């Protein structure tokens, strides 16, 4: 989360958005508890990203995206998938591949 936050701050939220897909309901916690817990984590990290509670957890990520674990996937402005299961340098490279550069504000 800190890496993504840093990249987004550098590039600008108007160019790079983040959509959180929470699988916490997978673990049998009540929805209200998950909602509160998720908000608490995101607030603590200082991010205002859209967060979706997936009703069926990983089953939803698998059926929609063929993703069976935690991680990041990048979709370019043209709707093309640029990377899956991205971390560290791979994430930075994938972001660069979309033509995103540092914000003009920097």
């Amino acid at each position, binding site marked *: *989360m800190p890496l*993504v936050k840093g990249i*987004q701050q550098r590039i600008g939220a*108007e*160019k*790079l*958005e*983040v*959509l*959180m*897909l*929470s*699988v*916490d309901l*997978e*673990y*049998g*916690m009540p929805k209200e508890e*998950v*909602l509160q*817990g*998720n908000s*608490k*984590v995101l607030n603590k990290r200082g991010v205002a*990203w*859209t*967060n*979706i*509670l*997936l009703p069926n957890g*990983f*089953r939803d*990520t*698998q*059926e*929609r*995206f*063929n*993703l*069976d*674990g*935690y*991680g*990041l*996937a*990048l*979709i*370019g*402005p043209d*709707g*093309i*998938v*640029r*990377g*899956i*299961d991205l971390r560290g340098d791979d994430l930075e490279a994938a*972001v660069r591949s*979309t033509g*995103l550069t540092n914000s003009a504000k920097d």
Partner: protein
Amino acid sequence: MKVHRLACIAFYIFATTACAQQEKQVYVPPQPQPKAGKNEVVVNLSPTKIERPGTINITFDANGHPSFIEPKPVKMVKGELNTDGEDVIFYLPAYGPYSVNSKKSHSFENTSTAISVDSNNNSELERTELWFSSMPIRFGDKMFEVKKIDPGSTWVLLSKSSAPLSGLVVGKPCPPFTFTMADGKQIKLEDYKGKSLLLDVWSMT
């Protein structure tokens, strides 16, 4: 629940998935190819030297502590499907028993044969290219269902699926999605048109 979560965590840490099979390699003679029906296609399979990491076996002792058994690589056979003018190469284990059914869809519980669609044609069967034959599989920009796999590993019968496009494939369009937020607002892929989007699968636990 605790044991279940431990198994989940272990799976993601050791995430080199594959279906629960191929421990015993028994020769089974090939069966005659079926005649492809409407919207069906029979794809020939050929031997390769390519291997995929095998099944991870997780066992629990009386106290619920997990033990992991290192997987053995599994030899693969190769198929090639032409869909919309695009040749898509895929791999499945060179030995059965095969199954195209599973009561569970989660990858760590899915008992159907895992198929690797080598979307980037690099002959490296990455975890993100793994699909289960009990669910619709994305070949290029089309979804297919696996109807039958020859127990002798020489062909596979596929049929075009009516399921909506799903699954992320690098270099291919993201399938359309709509999610409903807790406040009832809907979020769609189109909402991000012209912007890059990071999808972050996460949990607070």
